[in-house]
């Protein structure tokens, strides 16, 4: 009987401690005044609290505006945006993809499996793509899979896993059960896109055609491509196990010569970079947003402390 009382006491103390800790690390609720809608020329990013936040791209250390939206990954262009939200749950994690208009009103909701990894919106705002990764409770490569989806906002047609696209490796139709795609980036015509495909331990840059639903390998070793505004270059992460932190380095590939230039970021970067202008890319590294010249010169410049998933919003012209 005495032991039962001690156990009850221990339980009360521990549950009290648990509650106190939970209260102390609780995250603030969304601010009362929220900025609704996306503004031209602002840089949007996910703050460490998960809150979607923005700064003026020309003055990134200036005043911050929090939006009434939590996103784990965010992308936007012209009249559309995507907000990926991770959900813990019974079973494996899930992701909710909120498709939003320019006023950040929800137009569609897509329920996905996995953990948010990448989100992109084409320059016209028409094509929206995302990548989630799905893992079991092991961190081994064999238990790891990425699922990439594409939504055509004009037709409303959504592909939740593009792995059935007709893949050609070096011109030959290729079949393998282990093909994974991630990091889609669309060209200005909204049907040509680039993405990373991985199979049998190799990663390829593929050029896809959404209308024909086929993809052709272009070169190898390119992950998380992001197409430049003029469509001639791709910024990407290249595997480099000597990089500090994440085992990738940022590089820019010239699509006409297939020649790569390593950028002046010496640290490892695990992100799908964005283009701020034809000469500058931005990316998240160690929970902060940086910009670096796209030609390998210069040094990284910190834009935002405490931010990930950056996107520079351009309004419809």
């Amino acid at each position, binding site marked *: 009987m005495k032991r039962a009382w001690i156990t009850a006491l221990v339980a009360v103390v521990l549950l009290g401690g648990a509650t106190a800790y939970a209260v102390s690390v609780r995250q603030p609720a969304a601010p009362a005044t929220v900025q609704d809608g996306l503004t031209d020329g602002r840089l949007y990013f996910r703050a460490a609290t998960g809150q979607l936040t923005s700064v003026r791209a020309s003055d990134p250390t200036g005043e911050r505006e929090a939006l009434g939206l939590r996103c784990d990954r965010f992308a936007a262009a012209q009249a559309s945006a995507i907000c990926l939200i991770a959900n813990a749950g019974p079973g494996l994690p899930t992701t909710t993809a909120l498709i939003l208009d320019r006023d950040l009103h929800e137009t569609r909701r897509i329920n996905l499996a996995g953990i948010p990894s990448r989100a992109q919106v084409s320059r016209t705002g028409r094509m929206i793509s995302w990548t989630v990764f799905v893992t079991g409770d092991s961190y081994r490569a064999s*238990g790891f899979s990425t699922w990439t989806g594409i939504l055509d906002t004009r037709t409303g047609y959504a592909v939740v896993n593009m792995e059935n696209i007709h893949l050609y490796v070096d011109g030959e139709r290729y079949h393998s059960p282990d093909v994974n795609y991630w990091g889609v980036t669309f060209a200005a015509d909204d049907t040509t896109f680039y993405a990373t495909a991985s199979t049998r331990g190799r990663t390829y840059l593929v050029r896809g055609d959404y209308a024909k639903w086929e993809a052709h390998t272009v070169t190898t070793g390119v992950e998380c491509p992001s197409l430049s505004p003029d469509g001639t270059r791709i910024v990407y992460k290249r595997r480099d196990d000597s990089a500090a932190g994440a085992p990738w380095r940022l590089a820019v590939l010239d699509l006409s010569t297939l020649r790569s230039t390593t950028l002046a970021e010496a640290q490892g970067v695990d992100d799908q970079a964005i283009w701020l202008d034809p000469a500058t890319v931005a990316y998240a590294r160690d929970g902060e947003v940086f910009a670096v010249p796209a030609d390998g010169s210069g040094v990284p410049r910190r834009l935002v402390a405490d931010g990930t998933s950056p996107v520079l919003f351009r309004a419809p012209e």
Partner: protein
Amino acid sequence: MYVTVGRDTPAPGRRALRAVPATVLVLGTVSLITDVSSEMVTAVMPLYLALALGLTPLQLGLADALSFGVTAVLRPIGGRVSDRWRAKPVAVFGYALSAVAKAGVLVAGAAIGPLAAAIVADRTGKGLRTAPRDAMIAASVAPERQGTAFGVHRAMDTLGALVGPLVALAVLAATGGAYRAVFGVSFCIALLGVGVLLLHVRDSPVRTETVPPMWTVLKDRSLRRICLAAAGLGLFTVSDFFVYLLLQRSGAVPIQYFPLLPLGTAAVYLLLAVPLGRLADTRRVEVLLGGHLALVAALLLLIGTHTAAVALVGVLALHGLFYAATDGVLMALAAPQVPPAGRTTGLAVIQTVQAAARFVSSLAVGALWTAWSERTALLVMAVGLTAAVAGAAKVLR
């Protein structure tokens, strides 16, 4: 601490469970509480790593291999200490190590080394405590009731595993999505589990007879036979994640429901653990091997059926049946056959052999899948597992 020998007094309860001793129910409670704690962490860990810390799962791939290696070495040592001295302190150490690891994750932040260390400590704790705990369950009940005892324990364990993610969800909802709060609460719940273990589980008696040298324990013929069977079966046991991934790829499950698949297995496991445990009181080998045949049937169903509902319900039911008929039953089968003086060591060795075989199996499935196709991988594993069942039937007879 009060010393009991052999089985202790049955706890009051429903007639079917009357023969289940208090020790089993208390250990079941400890496992239930601990599984709530550990499954809370499992539910949010990938999100925490990827979204709060910005790490890729691949960056922690080393933690997997390291946990496996460290556990493989420490588990038999823990078993040996239990046999030569007492089981409870080893179990307490294992539970406490996992509890501290939850706080370790918080302290580590995004530093990969400390984070990997915390993950390794958590899994090592789990590896260390299993054999002494199972030995305590086995020691508390007569040989002809081993199946029921392990069935009840595993059912309570699974209940905790089902409740854990719900607690994690509640904590996230209450804290505006603070992952750190989940680890903190998980740490406190894990400590409660250690407290219940310390206060309510009677220790095994201090050994008076001399414990045979390690080599003699390992040379035991029944232990070797069970290890051989466990190795053969483990080599062809397809890991859960592959079963779910293959089920999803078969088209049976819309992508957004994929994350719910483990719940199906767990629910069937929970329902069947006690009935199959009772059946295993008298027919241990048959239940163990039948369970593996259920997994074969699940694999064949994955290959053969094109009816989504049949695949979904059938595979999950068979997968849950596989767990209910094998997880606790292997221990119920082994415990009475291994000489008491080396029992914990014996159980630890069997668990290590099984873990090693399954580790090889998951690599093999990945390789087969990549090199040929998922169908080939499934067929090879189904044929191999059938052969392993036939072999085990011969060895365990």
